[in-house]
């Protein structure tokens, strides 16, 4: 249900005073569609199915994402309804340019390329760390990163006055690399996440805190 008309007191779109649920599509459903696509593509017994991907594909980048997550063909509707049929020209050009840039010659070269990297949480490396970094030249001193981190995350962005101006700085020791500050920052590329050197790999399956792991936790 996309909304309720507060005058008609009915779900939208309103049909003579009443509404109903319907088929929901467009960019908003892309995350759901990608997950389901990936789930079928990565599961051994269903991975043999050729997949026509659908769900919010609006540009060449979405198209490439659906292909690398397992699709062999792509279905589009809302983007065409929004911008007209000629949007396919941009999709074809963009996909073609990207494939050239990456050295992919055919759709078969692209299909499923990201599937092996779609894993369950317990296969992620717990030793990996990434840290936020603020480009002080690009920063507009709005404070969104600070307040987001201070109120709802890890108190890892300090707010000080420097030469009479507000100044925000990442406290590396407190930063868990969650990305929230980069997401809320209104300036492109002002806050970047910097991956730190990886010493080794330890997943939850191997972690001593995991009661099911074979490695015993240290006493105390």
């Amino acid at each position, binding site marked *: *249900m*996309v*909304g309720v008309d507060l005058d008609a007191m009915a779900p*939208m*779109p*309103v*049909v003579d005073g009443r*509404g*109903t*649920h*319907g*088929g*929901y*599509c*467009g*960019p*908003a*459903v892309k995350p*759901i*569609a990608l997950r*389901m696509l990936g*789930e*079928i593509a990565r*599961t051994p017994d*269903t991975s*043999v*199915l*050729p*997949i*026509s991907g*659908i*769900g919010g594909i609006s540009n060449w980048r979405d198209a490439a994402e659906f*292909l690398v997550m397992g*699709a*062999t*063909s*792509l*279905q*589009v*509707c*809302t983007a*065409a*309804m*929004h911008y*007209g*049929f*000629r949007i*396919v*020209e941009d*999709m*074809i050009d963009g*996909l*073609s340019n990207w*494939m*050239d840039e990456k050295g*992919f*010659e*055919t*759709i*078969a070269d692209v299909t499923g390329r990201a599937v092996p990297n779609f894993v369950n949480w317990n296969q992620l490396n717990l030793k990996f760390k990434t840290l936020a970094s603020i480009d002080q030249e690009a920063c507009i001193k709005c404070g969104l990163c600070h307040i987001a981190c201070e109120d709802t995350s890890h108190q890892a962005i300090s707010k000080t006055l420097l030469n009479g101006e507000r100044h925000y700085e990442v406290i590396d020791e407190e930063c868990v690399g969650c990305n929230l500050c980069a997401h809320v920052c209104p300036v492109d590329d002002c806050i970047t996440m910097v991956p730190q050197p990886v010493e080794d790999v330890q997943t939850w399956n191997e972690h001593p805190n995991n009661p099911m792991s074979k490695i015993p936790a240290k006493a105390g």
Partner: protein
Amino acid sequence: MADLSTNIAGIRSPNPFWLASAPPTDKEYNVRRALEAGWGGVVWKTLGEDPPVVNVSSRYGATRYNGQRMAGLNNIELITDRPLAVNLAEIKAVKKDYPDRAIIVSIMVPCVEESWKRILPLVEETGADGIELNFGCPHGMSERNMGSAVGQVPGYVEMVTRWCKQYTRMPVIVKLTPNITNILNPARAALRGGGG
């Protein structure tokens, strides 16, 4: 330059971009404009049994978010509301003029073997490249025990897929509904129905 042509289950198209089964693929006029614009294929808007369904007036609701129009689109239109014969004749004419494009026909008829047995040869006769089973429609048709009402029951997905493999030579795309807890259940049912 990269070769964008694709082949999915034997359905070939010059690029992977197909218009999905929806209002833009309901009739010949729109589909021809789409193919002229360069779409690799279309999935013709879902055909059903006559008499055709009746659609309501006012059909789309949209999610706007911070200035972005149509971040989400909600559609309460049902399947095609035009007679079966009209759609079939148009599909045949389009396929004849665009032999290199993928023309797939979406179908939704009751979960009765006779209904599928009856419609499949009619679709096959158009020269279409494949069919798509509409097991996704969540409104109106699901109340009539079709669409997502089928897609939510793996046993039905398997049964109808098997009928389609039995009664047509065309490749069968099973459109899965996302309105389910685990997508692997209907996916496995489709695989079994297809003989896998």
